[in-house]
């Protein structure tokens, strides 16, 4: 066998240099059999013939060297066909980039199958989005770190679908300059992120600690390979949107441990520590003791937390005498009584900590013990590098919330450590159609202008008083309610959205069925009917014997008992309902529409008299009232078309709308009359800045309706804890929904419960 490399001819012809090819050659020889070696040589020739060029060839040779060594000969041989594919569709530069990307990609592609999945995805991208191959390959490392091979493929396919036939749009998506790329990204990872578990996790935190901080999930930047830590700052908590490198089955557990830990801080950590004169190492140690302290306190009441937290502590006593290792070992020693560690420093820390058991309620001991241990480490000349230090284990927060931020040591949160806030789509006006909204004709912007021009189509239908709490009285005829006709639109989308709530529909169907069945079907003691009411007949006979005049009401009939109830559903469609609901691309108004459609369906199945209307306002002279369905109109396609045609805009002068609603429902001759208000936030309008004014006026309106025996019930989000719902509707007559997205699940069932 010759000592020459198989690409000696290329070297000689000057096409490629001879970069470290001695070692590459050795690697190839070790892994390939003669047959495979020949194949490889043939591939090389083909690549050369295709015009890949010297740099490309060299990169190929290097890539296959690495591949052969790390993932075996078959993987190495799989590369060339893909390069040829990419070259054919996307050109030479992209083809060369593929070889370049191989080595970094391999770090995240654990086996040959993953590698092939990745190649397939790249080939697919080349065929359908050639312009995007190079930017994607350039980010291979980060993308694969975040997504894995499987997720990468899903992401590529998702991007191709979303980008459609438009190369520019595809490019924007794949080079991550379009914020939607992150959405796709989240979908593609396929594993659970914070938002999937958010509701349950928040409830968990409330159950354990009665803490309800604002929690924000922060997406990482693709390419950032470090595992992020949570962070809190008083009542503001940030958690990583995804737990990278955590098995799907454990993700919830990590989040749970994380929030339980932060909950322990919120309850047991005192005022923030002053950094004054502390070295970074001491800061880290004080934080570490503080972590252990709050956990111990929490475990006194909630012993089960031990089982949640302890398994994350995996430091070992043979872990080496470096600062990170010692810190992790000390952390473990402070929580896990079964952990044995004979290191003197760890033992000392442990003894000091547990000797102070009685003083644990005092955060001062964290400072005290942390400082002492820090001094010891200094004397042991153990180096501490604040740049690379991260709090262990994974579930613990970065502890920045423990320290006074004004002079917090920048060392402790090294730049990568700070959670980078990336684009989260919460309120994005310029984000045009996609997903569900896309098929609604007339986007909101167009509609708003259209409506402006139709403004004088409104018909004034009433003037109502308004209450000024500062004056303590009402100003009569202060607001004008103007009725506008909603523009009907096609209902296909709305119908589809409603159908997607199959489980709610099913439950409603059952409830409606039950409500009908459980209503006594027999109407007793009637003056007429198809048979005798036995009880009434006996009673009449008795009366006769007792010498009393018998009642003629001795018949009974079977009839669906009239629930004798009218309800007006009043929807808030102010500007804010155009916002996208957090974590989705659906607007609040869309959820209101779906919820109303579901409820309306149930109502018409039940046979309850109902009407639907919407409102918004533009100053006191233009409180807009949109009748969607009247009490004597059927809930049919036309009604749905009007519902689907509601568009958000303007302000929320709820009082005026309520008074008008009262007039509308007040005309109903039923025993009970109910106005069910769906709001999305505190009332407001352009002509008065004082928010309280509208809340108080609305409260007054509710009270005046109550005087006319009309019940008003509100449902909405809690308005960042302002309690405005309770203020307006009264303590018992409102329901807070924690997520607008759950309105379609909640509203119809709420109604069923209200009237059960």
């Amino acid at each position, binding site marked *: 066998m010759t000592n020459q490399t198989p690409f000696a001819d290329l070297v000689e012809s000057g096409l490629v240099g001879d970069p470290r090819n001695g070692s590459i050659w050795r690697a190839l020889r070790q892994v390939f059999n003669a047959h495979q070696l020949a194949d490889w040589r043939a591939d090389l020739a083909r690549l050369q013939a295709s015009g890949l060029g010297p740099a490309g060839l060299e990169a190929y040779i290097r890539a296959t060297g690495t591949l052969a060594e790390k993932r075996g000969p078959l993987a190495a041989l799989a590369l060339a066909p893909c390069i040829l594919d990419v070259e054919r569709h996307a050109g030479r530069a992209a083809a060369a980039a593929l070889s370049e990307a191989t080595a970094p990609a391999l770090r995240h592609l654990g086996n040959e199958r993953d590698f092939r999945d990745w190649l397939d995805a790249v080939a697919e991208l080349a065929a359908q989005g050639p312009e995007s191959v190079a930017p994607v390959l350039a980010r291979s490392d980060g993308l694969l770190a975040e997504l894995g091979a499987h997720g990468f493929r899903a992401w590529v396919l998702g991007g191709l679908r979303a980008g459609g036939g438009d190369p520019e749009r595809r490019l924007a998506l794949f080079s991550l300059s379009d914020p939607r790329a992150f959405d796709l990204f989240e979908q593609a990872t396929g594993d659970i992120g914070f938002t999937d578990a958010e509701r349950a996790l928040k*409830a*968990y935190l409330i159950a354990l600690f009665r803490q309800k901080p604002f929690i924000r999930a922060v997406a990482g930047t693709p390419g950032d390979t470090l595992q992020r830590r949570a962070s809190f700052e008083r009542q503001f908590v940030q958690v990583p949107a995804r737990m990278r490198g955590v098995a799907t089955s454990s993700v919830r557990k990590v989040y749970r441990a994380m929030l339980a830990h932060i909950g322990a801080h919120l309850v047991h950590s005192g005022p923030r520590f002053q950094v004054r004169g502390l070295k970074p190492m001491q800061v880290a140690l004080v934080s570490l003791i503080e972590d252990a302290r709050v956990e111990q306190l929490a475990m006194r009441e909630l012993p*089960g937390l031990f089982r949640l937290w302890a398994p994350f502590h995996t430091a070992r006593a043979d872990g080496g005498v470096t600062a990170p290792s010692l810190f992790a070992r000390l952390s473990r020693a402070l929580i896990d009584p079964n952990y044995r560690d004979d290191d003197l420093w760890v033992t000392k820390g442990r003894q000091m900590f547990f000797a102070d058991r009685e003083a644990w309620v005092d955060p001062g001991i964290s400072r005290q013990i942390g400082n002492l241990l820090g001094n010891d480490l200094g004397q042991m000349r153990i180096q501490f590098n604040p740049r690379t230090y991260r709090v262990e284990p994974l579930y613990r927060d970065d502890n920045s919330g423990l320290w006074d931020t004004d002079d917090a040591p920048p060392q402790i949160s090294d730049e990568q450590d700070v959670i980078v806030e990336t684009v989260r789509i919460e309120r994005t006006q310029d984000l045009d159609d996609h997903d569900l909204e896309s098929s609604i004709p007339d986007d909101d912007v167009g509609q708003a202008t259209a409506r402006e021009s139709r403004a004088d189509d409104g018909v004034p239908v009433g003037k109502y008083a308004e209450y000024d709490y500062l004056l303590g009285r009402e100003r009569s005829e202060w607001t004008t309610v103007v009725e506008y006709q909603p523009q009907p639109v096609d209902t296909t989308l709305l119908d589809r959205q409603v159908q997607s709530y199959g489980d709610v529909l099913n439950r409603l169907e059952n409830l409606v069925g039950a409500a009908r069945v459980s209503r006594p079907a027999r109407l007793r003691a009637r003056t007429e009917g198809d048979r005798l009411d036995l009880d009434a007949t006996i009673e009449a006979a*008795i009366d006769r014997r007792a010498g009393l005049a018998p009642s003629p009401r001795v018949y009974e009939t079977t009839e669906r008992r009239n629930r004798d109830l009218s309800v007006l559903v009043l929807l808030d469609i102010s500007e804010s309902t155009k916002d996208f609901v957090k974590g989705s691309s659906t607007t609040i108004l869309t959820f209101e529409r779906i919820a109303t459609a579901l409820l309306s369906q149930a109502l018409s199945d039940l046979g309850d008299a109902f009407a639907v209307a919407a409102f918004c306002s533009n100053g006191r002279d233009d409180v807009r009232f949109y009748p969607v369905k009247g009490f004597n109109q059927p809930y049919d396609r036309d009604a749905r078309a009007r519902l689907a045609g509601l568009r958000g805009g303007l302000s929320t002068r709820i009082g005026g709308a309520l008074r008008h609603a009262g007039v509308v429902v007040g005309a109903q001759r039923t025993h009970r009359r109910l106005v069910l208000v769906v709001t999305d936030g505190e009332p407001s309008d352009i002509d008065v800045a004082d928010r309280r004014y509208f809340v108080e006026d609305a409260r007054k309106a509710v009270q005046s309706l109550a005087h006319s025996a009309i019940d008003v019930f509100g449902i909405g989000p809690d308005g960042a804890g302002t309690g405005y719902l309770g203020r307006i509707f009264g303590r018992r007559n409102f329901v807070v929904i924690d997520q607008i997205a759950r309105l379609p699940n909640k509203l119809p069932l709420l109604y069923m419960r209200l*009237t*059960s």
Partner: protein
Amino acid sequence: MLRTLGGSQFRESPAFSGSGFGRGIFFPEPRELMTNLDDYRIREQPYYKAVGTEIALFEAAHQARMPMMLKGPTGCGKTRFIEFMAWRLKKPLVTVACHEDMTASDLVGRFLLDANGTVWHDGPLTNAVRYGAICYLDEIVEARQDTTVVIHPLTDDRRILPLEKKNELVRAHPDFHLVISYNPGYQSVLKDLKESTKQRFGAIDFHYPAADVETEIVAHEAGIPTSAARTLVEIGIRSRNLRGHGLDEGASTRMLIHAGRLVAKDVSLSAACDAALVLPITDDPDMREALKDAIAACI
């Protein structure tokens, strides 16, 4: 209607004095069914652990015969309390569980036919009024409003019960005391007490007892060691934190006792909580998850 009679036309029956069973002459004929309220006496002391000053308060209210309303969430001990008080005050206790199809006759009484003609049969309320019992109307909101109004004349100074059908006006026995229960957390606009009803009552507000007290109750009622009862109570507290945050109600004392009884039968604590608490309380998968995890943290 012909049958409507003015108050003056009512004949009065003599108030029955002295405690004990009833024996008296009543108008009109035919004779009343005689009722022996002895059956309604509580002979053995019911287990009741005071949560606050409710015993003294109720005793005072009883002395004044002030109609009382026991407010509080379900399963917090209202029923047990009234049983205990009846025992303590040595008064018979007539309990009526109200339901939506209940009519006024179900409370007051009605004529029935027998071989000789018609017989009036006192309802439970009338019995209590005549012979001097504590009458406990449980979950009064459930009853129809036209039913509820029959108690009105009993709850002001008149202390009378007109039996319209029978053309009789029953003056309440001095021992008669009306008590109702009312769960304000119950949200239904169709079911609420009329203002005019509510305002006739004094009220005692019941809450779930403090942790130590509740532990003792759970341990006693379920027959489990204090330590296990304590854990259950901690779990109860966590679940109550979720009230209004996804749950309509947290776990009641009654539920904790149920879980405890399972534990007493050697079911593991977490399985017992699952069966007696998590599953009955909510169908919402997120809330179930949160509850289960919170329970795990308590054990």
